[in-house]
């Protein structure tokens, strides 16, 4: 590579990175109602799925470890939500069928920033669902209308 091409490449990459980062920090304009409405989109086949780890005494503890490792960065400590992702302690999530939460974890909501977590094996996704639903509902008005899920 010629030396003269390096500054141009650097400037191009820096500009691109600034653009991407700025886009990352910019909240999307979404209606608050649409955040949890995604749960309703779970196919009936998934909604009807029972949590196979409900009786597993380690599922909550293992789910907590997985949550801290993979989810807490966006959904916050105790799943109370942050500016990046909504609270999972609201009644809409806590009373949702376990299968719907499993479906969201498996498929993500990629157009709204929630990544696909199918790379986690199924038992780990169920452990996460078990942990989240063990937390119980909390009314947190400041987290009821997050920027995006």
């Amino acid at each position: 590579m010629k030396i003269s091409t390096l500054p141009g490449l650097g400037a191009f990459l820096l500009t691109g990175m600034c653009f991407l980062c700025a886009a990352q920090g910019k909240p999307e304009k979404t209606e608050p109602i649409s955040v949890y409405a995604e749960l309703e989109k779970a196919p009936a086949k998934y909604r009807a799925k029972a949590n196979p780890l409900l009786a597993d005494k380690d599922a909550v503890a293992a789910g907590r470890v997985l949550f801290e490792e993979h989810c807490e960065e966006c959904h916050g400590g105790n799943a109370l939500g942050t500016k990046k992702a909504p609270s999972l302690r609201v009644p809409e999530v806590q009373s949702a069928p376990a299968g719907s939460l499993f479906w969201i974890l498996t498929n993500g909501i990629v157009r709204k920033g929630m990544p696909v977590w199918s790379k986690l094996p199924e038992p780990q996704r169920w452990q996460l669902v078990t942990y989240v639903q063990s937390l119980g509902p909390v009314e947190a008005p400041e987290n009821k209308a997050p920027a995006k899920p």
Partner: protein
Amino acid sequence: MSLSCLSHLYLLLLGTLLSLAGAGLLVAQENPYIVAYDHNLEEPGNLEVEYFSTFGTQRGGPNFHAFWGEFEYGATAWWTTELYLSGQTTFGESTVFTGYRWENRVRPLKNEHRINPVLYVEFEDINGGDKIMKEVEGHDVESDFLTPNAVARQERNREVELKLILSSNYKGWNFTENTLAVKNLSNEPWEFGYALGASRPLTLKGSAQKCNFCLQHFIAGVEMYGGLGDRYSFGLHETSHYLAPGLAWNLPSGWTFRIEPSFGLNDNSHQFLLRWGISYEIAGFGQKVSQLFKGKSE
């Protein structure tokens, strides 16, 4: 620009990035593949800084150590963009910077399916001394690597590479099939190649306690890759192929280590390659940079 200057710049950039890492913890769940890609993209806003090495044996000439750095950024949940900087040392000759690559992976379907396609587009500006073997294409064979660095670095290759990645997650396993087509932007024919991979964590359930050595953090796999000729002579004639078992160790602190010995499957292939890599995932990198530019923390 001298190589030592480049290495200083690289370290400075790496230091800046790691200082931005802050306390954000996010455990990567990386497969052991080094050549093949699966459909799992980088989480949005995260930056993964990676270093990889390939040690290669060379019949008829000196062995080599090729190395590259990757900066992989999750622009959105469906788009990952990545920059590579590469170089190589041919023992007894010299160490040279071999160029850069800029790749993009896009997930066109919003839901998970049995087979998940990902579209891959890469532009690369490299010289003839490149030996990282991030992909094997066309009629790439071992004897191509015999050209001395002083001559090889004079050759400049600007290429566009397209890949169709088809990947599935099933009962803890990942299976992936990549087909690639590469076009040198000078008047050369399209070249083709492939990569196949399968991997699985050593256990599927998560541990109830935080641990570095839990089996869930180790993912074992195997990949096979090689060339498929070009548009004038498509097929296996005069092509090289490799089989590579590998292991990835995803630490809860965000670090991932990978190791992958590769074995040549025919006389056109290097007999043995040893690849290894280390990576660190910086959670919320995009947001941190965004806050820097806004000048206030929210």
